């Protein structure tokens, strides 16, 4: 039996990697990948926490729900990125500053 703490650690590491990618990358797609990492870290935590609710399977249910939500979000996000690239000829979020000034 793998202890609960190890799941939590893997989740935390995944979340941190995702967070790092979101904060440092200059490419919107890489950032999107970072976001996916963080969502999956949360999903792992959901699944791990599911062992304490074997009757209703709440953890697994929430995980499936979150995977659907993430897939939808990625689809929307990629569409936005495509439209942004068409408009700005870049997907670096720092350069997309037309709303300033």
């Amino acid at each position, binding site marked *: 039996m793998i202890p609960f703490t190890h799941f939590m650690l893997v989740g935390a590491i995944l979340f941190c990697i995702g*967070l790092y990618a*979101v*904060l*440092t990358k200059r490419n919107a797609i890489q950032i999107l990948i970072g976001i996916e990492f963080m969502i999956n870290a949360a999903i792992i935590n959901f699944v791990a926490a599911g062992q304490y609710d074997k009757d209703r399977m709440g953890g697994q249910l929430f995980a499936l729900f979150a995977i659907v939500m993430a897939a939808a979000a990625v689809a929307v996000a990629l569409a936005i990125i495509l439209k942004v690239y068409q408009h700005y000829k870049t997907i670096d*979020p*720092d350069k997309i*500053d037309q709303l*300033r000034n």
Partner: protein
Amino acid sequence: MTLDTPVVLTDLAIAAAILPLLSFLVTGLFAKPGKGAFLAILTIAISFILSAIVFSQTWNRLDIHQQYVWFTIGNTSFYAGILLNNLGSLMLLLVSGIALLVHIYSTAYMKGDAYLHRYWAHLSLFCFSMLSMVIADNLLLIYIFWELVGFSSYLLIGFWFTRDAAVQANKKAFIVNRIGDLGILSGLMIVFTQFGTFDLQQLLGENGLIINAFVQNGEWINGVHTMPAVWLTVAGLGFVLGAIAKSAQFPLHVWLPDAMEGPTAVSSLIHAATMVAAGIFLLARLFPLFNDTVLLVIAITGTLTALMAATIALVQNDIKKVLAYSTISQLGFMMLAIGIGQYSAAIFHLTTHAFFKCLLFLSAGAVIHEMHHVKQVAPVDFDHQDIRNMGGLRKHMPVTFIAMLVASLALIGIPLTSGYLSKDAILISSFEWAALRGSWSKIIPVTALITSWLTAFYTARLFFKVFLGKNRWRILSPEGHIHEAPPAMRYPLVILALCSTFLIFSVNPLLYEDAWLLRGFPAVESLERINIIHTVIPALVNLLAILIIYFAWQQYARRDKTIFTNRGFFYDFAFNKWYIDNLYQAAIIKRVLNLAAFVRGFDRVIVDGMVHLLAKVGQALATLSAWLDTYIVDGLVNGVGILSKSIGNFARNMQTGKLQHYLLITLFIVITFFIVTYFSLAI
């Protein structure tokens, strides 16, 4: 137009007095440097002619008195006017006459002086004040012109103001005269309080207030007003103090010898003939005011001064100093005459003395003038006024020699001169006066007698040393030549020499009682005529005087060396002027200066110190508040500014516009929130 109406005469007298003022104003305001002589001489000449007319019309006639309202204070009106009686018109003539001669003399004597216009202006001012004083009809006016005389004398003594000695001398004369002015002012106030008027005619004329006032039971009663009798004496002494200062009497005589720093012509006019006579004139004007005590004070002062000045004159070597002391001595004689009640004799001596002393000074001036020329070509520097450097001038300056001879004889009082008449009048009267009093009072006439012999000696010494004997100046200045004085100087000498003989005063050269001038004044105290005195005294005086002159001739003219040594107590005592100057220096001047230094020190250390301390405290407070303002008040204001600026900067820096920064910040906030929540729950 007739000349003898009072209005015309007073107008003439006023014109005579005002003309020199005109000259003073015009010369003082408009004259170019070195000019002014013509106007000054013209005005004084007209003054003299007018004075002569006035004199001829008023002498021995009724007094002329014209007055006008001057100003009114409350109910009291003050009048200003002209009083022409014998005394006033005689003085008017005397002053303008001598002033005219001195003016003419000055054209030559002062020739080439760079500040000549100033000289003429000041001389005219002096003539104006002196002429106005002698005809003024009230004490206030007299006092005003008296002050003006003192002031113009101050200007003239200090004419060569670049010389330190002249500056010191005019300061001294002015300060010493101030002491006398104080006396006159107190006298004026007492007289006005008692009688309510300054008018001389009201005070002293027929049935005048002073004459009708009397002393009873220690009270001085005037019908209207009464005050303790002591004030009568005080008023008299006040006026006497003024006369003592102006006429250079002991103990205020110290200014006159120093005043010789002025030009010699000025010394002649002011310090021999006119200004110093002002004191005698004042005493003669106010004669009825003086009681016996005051008269005695006058007599004693006069006698003491005469003796003192004569002894000092014995040992002086400066030609002008000798003459200055002889002036003081002769003024002492005049004071003595007033003191014994014979003010007519005093005025007589004043008149004769004015002529022969003026002549002496002008002759001395001629000698000094020539000696100065000799000095200029001399290889060595020497004092051209020192009689030890003169000698043998008779052959070179015959006219001056004869003029000086006449003047010297008049000063000694040898018969046939004017001095003989007036001096005998005083000496004989003083013996008659003493005969009526106790034996102690003999001291006064005897002292006067001794003084007249001393006069003979010092005058002879001066005369012989200058005009006879060896040409001592030749040794000092082999190139030098002495010439006769120029005509402008010579003719005044001749005129004055004629006036110094008996001719214009009396037909009888031996008997002073025949002099017309003496009869012009009432003999105040009718002394019994003691015939023996009238014969013995003149004989005694003149016999011994001639012996003394012969002795002096032996000493100074023939052998050119003397049996007298310059040592011993008496020599030192006389040479140092009876130590009076030293006494004043030690007793008064030094103390005053010490006091002044102390007050100055007090002022600098304490008063200034306090002020400075106050300033320092204020400065310190100001520094403190400046510091507070800079660092606290401004600091507060700036601090608020800086704070909001830094907050603004901080907030601004967060608005980078970069998406990831916002995310990072959000992350930090979330983490911080969690940490705070965690720890606050833990606590």
